[in-house]
């Protein structure tokens, strides 16, 4: 039952990511697109962790929290260049 629920949750995450693409593509401002990208990154992290459990290959957990940190750095870089106009 838990395996089936995990598969269902993974499928739901994929569908919700496709819905999030609406806001990323047609968002009126750059900030809306950044919020959408943030949600997409959260979904990707959950997908990685669920796949790591379904495949019984827990090396992917390292990938998950490295992905959290690198997504944070990427968003901070984009926001800094939006706010200041340069990165330094």
């Amino acid at each position, binding site marked *: 039952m838990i395996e089936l629920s995990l598969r269902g949750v993974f499928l739901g995450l994929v569908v919700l990511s496709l819905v999030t693409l609406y806001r990323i593509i047609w968002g009126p401002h750059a900030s809306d697109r950044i919020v959408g990208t943030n949600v997409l990154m959260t979904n990707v992290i959950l997908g990685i962790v669920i796949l790591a*459990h379904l495949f019984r290959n827990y090396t992917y957990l390292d990938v998950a929290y490295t992905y959290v940190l690198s997504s944070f750095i990427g968003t901070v870089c984009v*926001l800094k260049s*939006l*706010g200041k106009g340069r990165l330094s």
Partner: protein
Amino acid sequence: MKLVWELFVCFLLWSGLFFIFVGTVGLVRLPDLYTRMHATAKCDTLGTGLVLLALMTQVGGFVEVVKLIICAAFVWSINPVMTHLIGSTAYIRGTEYVPTTFFRDCYHDPYPGREDLRREDVNA
């Protein structure tokens, strides 16, 4: 007993998916940037925490549980900071808000409309 435990874990998983669903619906439906950030900041953080909590009961070893806890702590601390950064950048850039937005100054005049409270309580 085992069935109850499995039902509890499934409940955690599906409620996590429900909160992420609410976050996505809010992202698509709400009218301006700041209210969209309400939906994503709270519901995504809560949904991630619930799904990771359900997975913590399933993975086997100690190291895996610690790694999941670290992942959850990162998400729970990074998500509010990210919301704060996006909000301050958008506020500086002058992103528009819905026309019915009100502004209220509680810095110079604490508790507007609630003068029954004493001022000494405020300036502690």
